[in-house]
């Protein structure tokens, strides 16, 4: 699925050439009772105005922490974060960036409209309340208490709040978490309309499918680092790796497995009885090694699902991590 987007309208930031987002050597370490935990371990990322970027990674990859620093909600342990060339908190105050955060964060005893009015009152020149309610598709539930709204409706409300400052950069942290299929589809339909207005959009997700459908560019994060970054089509072709299955000769099987694990094109190697299963980013190289070097037989190559692809991308990082 491809999306043509009109060119972004010229913005002050574009004039000065400052990127929408610039993260340099960003790190964050949390002190816990069982010692320090590094959530983000050095992220460098530059996002130009008008880009639609998916930050893809498994739970605990450091996506939310990175986004928190990008929004000025948390201060980095090291490195720097800038939004339109400014400290994040300033960009937030100027209404140039807003965000849809993960679950929580709404007052249950206000109505949908009251919540929008409240947040609108914090801005100098917010978008009209009724207009924002309509755009987020909340017209029918505007007078309903937040506590009576479904998860999808609450998420659309957070989205409505994010539209209030008419931001140049919109950040979405797992925006469809907890939504059913219909709600998810509706949400992305509304998002397409907003992206078409030329906003820069950065969203975190752990669904490769969402990243694939909506983003121009995918940044894959694992273990607090960027492990892949490129245009969606490129990442997908790299990511939708293949699985190579083969039977190894009984003698020297352990050595053979070790050889496979060292192979650059093999992301994950598992042994199931006398069969070996290799999640490959380069299936040709894996197949060649298996047949020529390792004397394997009954070789099969299967095209992986998106889920397996995801493991291929992020699992590689895990292997590197363990190898340290």
């Amino acid at each position: 699925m491809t999306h043509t987007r009109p060119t972004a309208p010229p913005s002050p930031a574009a004039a000065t050439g400052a990127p929408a987002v610039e993260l340099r050597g960003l790190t964050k370490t949390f002190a816990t009772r069982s010692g320090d935990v590094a959530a983000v371990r050095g992220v460098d990322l530059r996002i130009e105005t008008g880009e639609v970027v998916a930050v893809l990674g498994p739970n605990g990859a450091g996506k939310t922490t990175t986004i928190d620093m990008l929004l000025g909600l948390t201060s980095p342990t090291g490195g720097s974060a800038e939004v339109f060339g400014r400290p994040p908190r300033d960009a937030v105050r100027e209404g140039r960036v807003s965000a849809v955060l993960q679950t929580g964060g709404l007052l249950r005893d206000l109505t949908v409209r009251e919540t929008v009015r409240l947040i609108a009152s914090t801005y100098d020149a917010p978008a009209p309340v009724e207009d924002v309610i309509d755009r987020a598709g909340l017209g029918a539930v505007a007078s309903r208490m937040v506590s009576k709204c479904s998860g999808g409706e609450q998420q659309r409300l957070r989205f409505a709040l994010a539209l209030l400052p008419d931001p140049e950069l919109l950040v979405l942290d797992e925006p469809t978490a907890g939504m059913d299929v219909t709600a998810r589809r509706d949400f992305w339909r509304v998002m397409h309309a907003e992206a078409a207005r030329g906003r820069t959009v950065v969203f975190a997700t752990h669904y490769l499918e969402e990243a694939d459908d909506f983003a121009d560019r995918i940044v894959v994060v694992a273990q607090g680092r960027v492990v892949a970054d490129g245009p969606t089509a490129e990442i997908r072709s790299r990511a939708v790796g293949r699985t190579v299955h083969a039977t190894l000769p009984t003698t020297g099987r352990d050595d053979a497995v070790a050889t496979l694990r060292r192979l650059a094109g093999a992301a994950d190697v598992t042994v199931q009885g006398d069969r070996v299963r290799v999640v490959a980013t380069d299936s040709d190289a894996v197949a060649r090694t298996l047949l020529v070097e390792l004397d394997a037989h009954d070789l099969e190559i299967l095209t992986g699902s998106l889920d397996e692809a995801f493991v291929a991308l992020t699992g590689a990082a895990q292997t590197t991590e363990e190898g340290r």
Partner: protein
Amino acid sequence: MNTTYLGLELRRFARDRANLFFIGVLPAFFYIIFGATQAYGGSPLGNGNVALYILVSMAAYGAVTATVGVGGMAAVERMQGWGRQLGLTPLRDGGFVLVKITLAVVVALLPVTLIAVIGALTGAEGTTVAWTLSLLAVAGGACVFALFGLCAGLAFRTEAAVSAASGMVVVLAFLGNVFVPLSGTLLAIAKFTPLYGYVALARYPVTEGRLISGDGASLGSDPLWLPLLNLGVWSAVLAVAAVLLVRRGRERQ
């Protein structure tokens, strides 16, 4: 000051019938039972009468219940993610605190006004100065106890903890000589408890420090510095605890 935010906060408060009852109505009911309808109410006392003394006590109880609730809910809301939502807006922490403090005062004025009107109509008497200064002290001093609610909310992060803190106010009110005139050892202990200084200060314009007992015997009087010191020390303790708890909360985020 963000008046839209304050207006919506007042509407939220008005929606909670249970709160409205415990904060707005119950203290006034207490006053009617223990003050307005008692024969001793008319006995003169300092710059007023015993009914005015009981009126100030119940108003103080009501005002503190109100501010503990507002302070506690402010903490719980922020912990439960509303703080992050507000962190995405230009609203500064100071602006949020100002809205909540104003809310606490307005909510505290609800029982105070209700009790004052009922009292004025049912025999509470005193000089204009005594009425004015006492009620001002009730409303102003109550703000300190918003910090108590805040600490409870920050420490336990649940609405139940805030309810428990409001319930604790009843216990502290007994210990602090608010409801029943204490004497002997209990009175000696009471002087160290948090609500003692506050209520003694609020009563001061009426009693000029005189302590009364249940049987009318004199128990001497408190110098003005005693309630001031009590309130000052407890304000400092609560403020330090709140700062430490905010810091702990931030590190965990």
